[in-house]
């Protein structure tokens, strides 16, 4: 039903590229479901992506795992920040 654009940073960007287009079969999904879908595409990163250390954000605001998102929304995934 469309593509989700996702962005990665840090070690995720290194492994998955800075952005990816994720085809979605439903009209929408939760962040938790999206983590699993992306994890299937990038198995090496699945543990990170589905774990608590990686946070998700929409429109520059952190969002919880039960937030529903749909194609057209850009979702960003942040590993733990290193600090400066």
């Amino acid at each position: 039903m469309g593509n989700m654009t996702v962005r990665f940073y840090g070690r995720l960007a290194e492994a998955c590229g800075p952005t990816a287009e994720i085809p979605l079969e439903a009209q929408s999904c939760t962040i938790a479901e999206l983590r699993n879908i992306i994890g299937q595409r990038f198995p090496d990163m699945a543990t990170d992506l589905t774990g608590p250390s990686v946070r998700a954000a929409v429109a520059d605001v952190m969002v919880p795992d039960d937030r529903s998102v749909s194609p057209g929304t850009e979702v960003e995934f942040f590993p733990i920040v290193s600090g400066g």
Partner: protein
Amino acid sequence: MATQARLTDDVIRPDLLLQELLAAATGAGAIVNFCGLVRPEDHEGRKIEALRLDHHPRLTLRSLETIAQDGAERFGLSTCLVVHRFGRIEPGATVVFVGAAALHRRAAFMGADYLMDRLKSEAMFWKKEEGAAGGQWIEPTNEDRADLLRWGN
């Protein structure tokens, strides 16, 4: 400038920034500044070729601004400057410059110290040390976390 945070992929010139601080800090009695440089070796003594800092196009600067404002308010800094570099940075180069001006030296010292403790744990970067044997992503150390606790954060 009062309180300001900057994010740049260009070389940081601490001498010029200190000049700016001195010009801005009218009436201050004390200025403390900090330069964080890329070390030539990692914690295990292996040569570092470069530090690479990945950043977010909006949130990274916002994190620097929040830290700068918190520091300025908490310690009554008349001038507070945080300048952070991102991208690939070679050993010896400056990654971060912090400046804190206040009426008295205790506030300036504590302000700069606080800014650095916050930056080392909370600035929104993803940092990798690149060496001959590949590289490794860095997370805040236990020491960084302990440093942050000193301020009740």
